[in-house]
């Protein structure tokens, strides 16, 4: 929509040269004119679950003449309440993406693949995997998957193999968020009763682009009900567009803001006294520690005026307990900074000062239905595997607080380079593009003796795999029963095929079942997915048939406000974390500097921050033409930079920039905007696809291979000392104007 003037100028210049060519233009369109008419035929609707991002929204998909046509959100589903996002609509077209994998593949050379039969794939994988297990032990095998419903199956598979090394994306995403809450209230993901809130604070959380449609909807309902929404973010996020106030903070310093807010609440005695008295642990020490964190002090750290900090604390206290600070996700409270864990702890504590746990308009635990299990007498579960993971999770001397089954994804390449890991499975995940420092990651994964991938296209990671087992796409397969739609009430949902598989692909459960015997663990996979799901549903009094008809079934049992319950060891909200004390870690929230910071004297030095865009999922939608069109018409691939900083560097909107860090260098165009803190530049996190096998979007205009850059290109391989996460916000870059 922007660059019309330009195109017109080109047009005029071009045409004054080759007017004749342009006169002929209408004929050139004959091909497209003659091309296919709209799809026609009978319409069918199938309820299922979207898989264009981790939210797994419940959707009703329409087919016309057997071809996917469109979809709508399921009105009762807790996660999306009848809504759908651009990705959900756009990803429907991926079924027909020509870049899809059409059969099992064996890599016979760099980026050279050969079609093979499932049987051959199973046989060869089985032999090689067992040989490795013989030689190096089960410890040398890992499984990485983006944890969603299916993780129960993959867990079972890996446990049967005798390995504890179940990895997830957590160390690149949310790790401190989960642990910080767990340490403080005994549970890692409390929900928010935004509808009834009077005050909503978002700290580095942007559900308006890091979408959670359910959350977004309740936030807006809360706003309609008169709630004040405040967004703390170094940039003017999409959530800020919904908010009453945008607090522009220096990145990496939210901890200071929270500590100062606690300081004010305690100093002015405006916290919920009897809640603190009855339901919390260690307030005295906490209050004592907070004394030094004055608003004046915090202003210096955060660049947020002390008046605003005081006002924030007072307004929240006034609205409490119907006031809530969002639990956080990836930004700020996720795997961003060295101090993120302390930030999450302090956020949980300030929520505690507002006494909002299990209160109207506060925090609550979503009621989840308890799924049944397979009958052990018929289907014995594999023996538990003891000991810590190879990455040091749960190891008292390394990452004691990082639980099993989550793992540090970005440790895999390091462990491979050390020879600790020899073989692995990567399911529905793309570490080559989503982990820090790709050069290093590639080196590491290349070192593995056997890498088996599950993907629907040749992603960066799949391109490196020795074998690729193409899972049927989400619109072509069944998956395990799913309970994550339970927000205020208990819900079960299920994914089922909308169309028959286009190519020679299979659902995960079937692949595991067929592969297991070749690994000598056949006895643990004698069941079908249907049996697994029926067993799961049994205790809920819901039949698989009913569920497949409805897509989502609500089991009621709605959450009601009441007395707070905490699942911590003390049974209370822990201002002072007993667990951290045991491992003598800083058990009282306190200030900690970010790992790195830009040089205030160097006009080229910035912190590089990143974030989601509502129309993309990580980098995996960058090859989807419908979604990439949105990027190109808005020119939204650009790097945000503040006008004052831009001016001193002679940078104008649209100029080409080179950004450099210790580990990477890249080119990107500038978006000069007041909507970003002068200390940092902001890079949308959806781009930088480097797999040559993702080319469809390019043929359709823009996107896919070679489009844009990623923050990971500039991020060194870090392990945060306590949890070992990636610290994706700890990047300092040099920004320079370049030409072309």
């Amino acid at each position: 929509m922007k660059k019309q003037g330009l195109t017109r100028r080109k047009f005029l210049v071009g045409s004054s040269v080759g007017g004749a060519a342009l006169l002929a233009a209408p004929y050139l369109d004959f091909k497209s004119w003659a091309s296919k008419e709209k799809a026609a035929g009978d319409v069918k609707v199938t309820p299922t679950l979207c898989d264009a991002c981790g939210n797994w929204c419940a959707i009703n998909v329409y087919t016309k003449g057997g071809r996917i046509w469109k979809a709508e959100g399921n009105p009762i589903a807790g996660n999306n309440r009848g809504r759908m996002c651009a990705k959900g609509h756009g990803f429907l077209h991926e079924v027909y993406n020509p870049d899809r994998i059409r059969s099992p593949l064996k890599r016979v050379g760099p980026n050279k693949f050969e079609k093979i039969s499932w049987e051959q794939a199973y046989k060869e994988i089985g032999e090689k995997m067992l040989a490795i297990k013989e030689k190096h032990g089960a410890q040398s095998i890992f499984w990485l998957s983006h944890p969603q419903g299916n993780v129960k199956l993959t867990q079972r598979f890996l446990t049967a193999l005798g390995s504890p090394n179940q990895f997830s994306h957590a160390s690149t995403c949310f790790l401190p968020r989960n642990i910080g809450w767990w340490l403080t209230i005994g549970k890692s993901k409390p929900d928010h009763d935004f509808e009834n809130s009077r005050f909503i604070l978002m700290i580095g959380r942007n559900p308006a682009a890091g979408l959670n449609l359910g959350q977004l909807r309740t936030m807006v309902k809360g706003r309609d009900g008169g709630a004040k929404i405040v967004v703390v973010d170094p940039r003017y996020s999409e959530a800020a567009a919904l908010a009453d106030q945008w607090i522009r903070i220096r990145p990496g310093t939210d901890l200071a803001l929270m500590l100062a807010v606690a300081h004010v609440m305690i100093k002015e005695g405006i916290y919920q006294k009897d809640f603190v008295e009855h339901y919390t642990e260690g307030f005295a020490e906490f209050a004592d520690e907070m004394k030094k964190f004055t608003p004046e002090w915090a202003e210096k750290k955060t660049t947020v005026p002390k008046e605003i900090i005081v006002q924030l604390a007072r307004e929240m206290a006034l609205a409490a307990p119907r006031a809530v600070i969002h639990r956080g996700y990836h930004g700020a409270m996720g795997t961003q900074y060295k101090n993120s864990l302390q930030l999450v702890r302090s956020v949980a504590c300030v929520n505690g000062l507002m006494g909002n746990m299990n209160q109207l308009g506060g925090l609550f635990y979503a009621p989840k239905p308890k799924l049944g299990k397979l009958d052990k007498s018929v289907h014995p579960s594999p023996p538990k595997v003891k000991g810590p993971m190879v990455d040091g999770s749960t190891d008292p001397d390394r990452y004691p607080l990082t639980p099993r089954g989550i793992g540090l994804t970005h440790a895999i390449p390091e462990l491979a380079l050390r020879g600790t890991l020899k073989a692995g499975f990567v399911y529905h995940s793309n570490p080559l593009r989503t982990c820090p420092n790709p050069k290093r990651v590639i080196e590491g994964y290349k070192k593995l003796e056997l890498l088996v991938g599950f993907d629907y296209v040749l992603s960066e990671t799949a391109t490196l795999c020795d074998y690729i087992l193409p899972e049927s796409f989400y619109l072509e397969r069944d998956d395990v029963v799913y309970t994550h739609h339970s927000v205020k009430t208990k819900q079960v949902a299920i994914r089922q095929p909308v169309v028959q598989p286009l190519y020679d692909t299979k659902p995960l459960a079937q692949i595991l079942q067929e592969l297991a015997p070749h690994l000598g663990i056949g006895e643990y996979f004698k069941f079908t997915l249907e049996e697994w799901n029926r067993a799961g549903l049994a205790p809920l009094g819901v039949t698989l048939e009913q569920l497949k008809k409805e897509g989502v079934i609500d089991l009621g049992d709605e959450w009601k406000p009441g007395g707070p319950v905490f699942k911590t060891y003390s049974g209370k909200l822990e201002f002072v974390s007993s667990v951290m004390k045991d491992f003598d870690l800083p058990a009282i929230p306190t200030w900690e500097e970010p790992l790195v910071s830009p040089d205030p004297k160097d006009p080229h030095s910035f912190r590089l921050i990143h974030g989601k865009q509502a129309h993309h999922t990580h980098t995996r939608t960058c090859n989807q033409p419908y979604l990439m069109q949105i990027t190109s018409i808005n020119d939204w691939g650009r790097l945000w930079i503040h006008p004052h900083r831009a001016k001193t560097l002679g940078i104008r909107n649209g100029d080409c920039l080179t950004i450099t860090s210790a580990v990477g260098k890249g080119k990107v165009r500038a978006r000069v905007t007041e909507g970003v803190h002068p200390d940092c530049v902001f890079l949308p996190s959806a781009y930088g696809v480097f797999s040559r096998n993702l080319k469809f979007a390019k043929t359709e205009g823009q996107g896919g291979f070679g489009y844009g850059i990623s923050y990971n290109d500039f991020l060194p391989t870090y392990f945060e000392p306590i949890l070992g996460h990636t610290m994706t916000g700890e990047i300092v870059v040099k920004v320079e104007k370049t030409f072309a």
Partner: protein
Amino acid sequence: MPRYGIAIDTTKCIGCFACRVACQNHNELPPSQAFNWIVEREKGSFPSFSKEFIPAQCNHCEKAPCQRVCPTGAIYTSKEGVVLVHRNRCVGCKYCIEACPYKARVLNHHEGIVTKCWLCIDMVREGGKPACVTTCPNQVRIFGDLDDPDSEISQFIAKNRAQPPRADLNTKPKIFYKRS
């Protein structure tokens, strides 16, 4: 007969473009063609900086310039006040594209005609709502009967004094905006 229109609350729009793709899918448009679009506006400078996302589409003008200039009479207004295009009468002269002040009309090379938002009248006549309305996570768009004073849309327009875009062009649009 109802007189359909849409009220848009830009203060709730997050520029997520779900409405664009939902529309493209329902109407089977290629990636590069869309019947609705979002205008992004940055206002003021820090600390009073703010940003607004403004969804837009055909206004179904009561005095539609496109309809007036269309030589073939392919453009007509339905009984529900929806401005439609007669697919097999349009010759593709593009006069309407020039005439539409809102630039809401889309040249469809496949069929050689010019189309645009048709208020999803196919779904609406079956008692449904337009795709861009139902998919929106924040219910930015309110669809309904402008002639029924009790309809949600009429109430909303009255309560918020929602305005049509560029009333001064006196095209009498049926899309109304609440912008603050």
